[in-house]
């Protein structure tokens, strides 16, 4: 049962392997050249497992000690996980002990795969999601640790490889669009993010975006529910 779930899960994580090794190594190298031992990226990747925050944490660690500011930044960068949790309430039901790891390791990529993947009937859903999450974390931790160890020895001629993450989210978004009948909420999310990006800038548009999405979904609940077409 476990082997079958692993075999089903692995192909879904191949793009993440490319993306996480690239980004993870970049992160490890960044920590290395900022003067930190490889233990830092390794421990942080195991215990935080959230790429964007880990990058920001480097600048927090090199700045003067400011715990409250660190907490506020963390909550703002990671707030989107609240949305993932709400979407996964049903899917994680009855997963036993695996549920706690699934929640712990719910980064953007693991959430997106676990939410959208068509899991074959004869494969255990819990183990499938468990292996997706575990493999993704393994890629991230090994990439960032390697980056931290090798540091500035590595020279990149891989400019543009990070686009693998963008391409993956584009494909997942497209799959979602093809599955659903009405695209109101897809439109809400995309438009809110675009408008907030223009108004608030690249570094601080996610919290306003999420508030906009919540407000729009609340105000237009009736027509959206009436149209239905959810997957």
């Amino acid at each position, binding site marked *: 049962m476990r082997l079958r779930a692993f075999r089903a899960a692995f192909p879904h994580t191949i793009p993440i392997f490319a993306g996480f090794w690239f980004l993870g190594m970049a992160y490890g190298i960044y920590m290395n050249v900022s003067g930190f031992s490889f233990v830092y990226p390794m421990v942080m990747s195991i215990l935080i497992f959230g790429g964007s925050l880990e990058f920001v944490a480097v600048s927090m660690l090199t700045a003067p000690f400011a715990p409250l500011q660190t907490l506020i930044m963390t909550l703002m960068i990671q707030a989107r996980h609240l949305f993932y949790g709400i979407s996964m309430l049903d899917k994680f039901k009855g997963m036993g002990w695996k549920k706690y790891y699934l929640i712990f390791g719910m980064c953007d990529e693991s959430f997106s795969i676990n939410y959208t993947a068509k899991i074959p009937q004869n494969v255990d859903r819990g183990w499938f999601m468990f292996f997706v999450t575990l493999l993704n974390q393994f890629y991230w931790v090994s990439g960032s640790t390697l980056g931290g160890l090798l540091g500035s020895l590595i020279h990149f001629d891989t400019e543009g490889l990070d686009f693998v993450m963008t391409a993956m989210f584009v494909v997942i978004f497209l799959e979602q669009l093809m599955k659903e009948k009405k695209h109101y*909420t897809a439109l809400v999310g995309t438009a809110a993010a675009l408008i907030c990006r223009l108004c608030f800038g690249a570094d601080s548009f996610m919290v306003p975006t999420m508030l906009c999405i919540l407000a729009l979904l609340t105000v237009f609940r009736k027509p959206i529910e009436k149209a239905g077409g959810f997957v």
Partner: protein
Amino acid sequence: MTDMTLTQQIITIAICILGTMATRFLPFLVFSGRRPTPKFVQYLGRALPSAIFGMLVVYCLKNVTVFAGSHGLPEMIAIAATVGLHLWKKQMLLSIAGGTVCYMLLVQLVF
């Protein structure tokens, strides 16, 4: 290198960990299995994912500037290639690989 003491570093990293886990675990703690999940939250659970995936695509492209540099052209072309490939072959890995190779060629050779 950092001016923090080791204790301060550990506290900073611990705050990052606790803050992250708070955002991941909170929905499951608030809406536990014992009470039925409120109808509005159930609705959000169904309505949010499409909005999230749209938002994540924009999030990936947040550092693209349309008015300077390469005007976001490599990103636009590579996304069009990714979408085209996916509509044509419907092979997830192929679409992602094709789009990425297209982007890498564009930023390394053209722009």
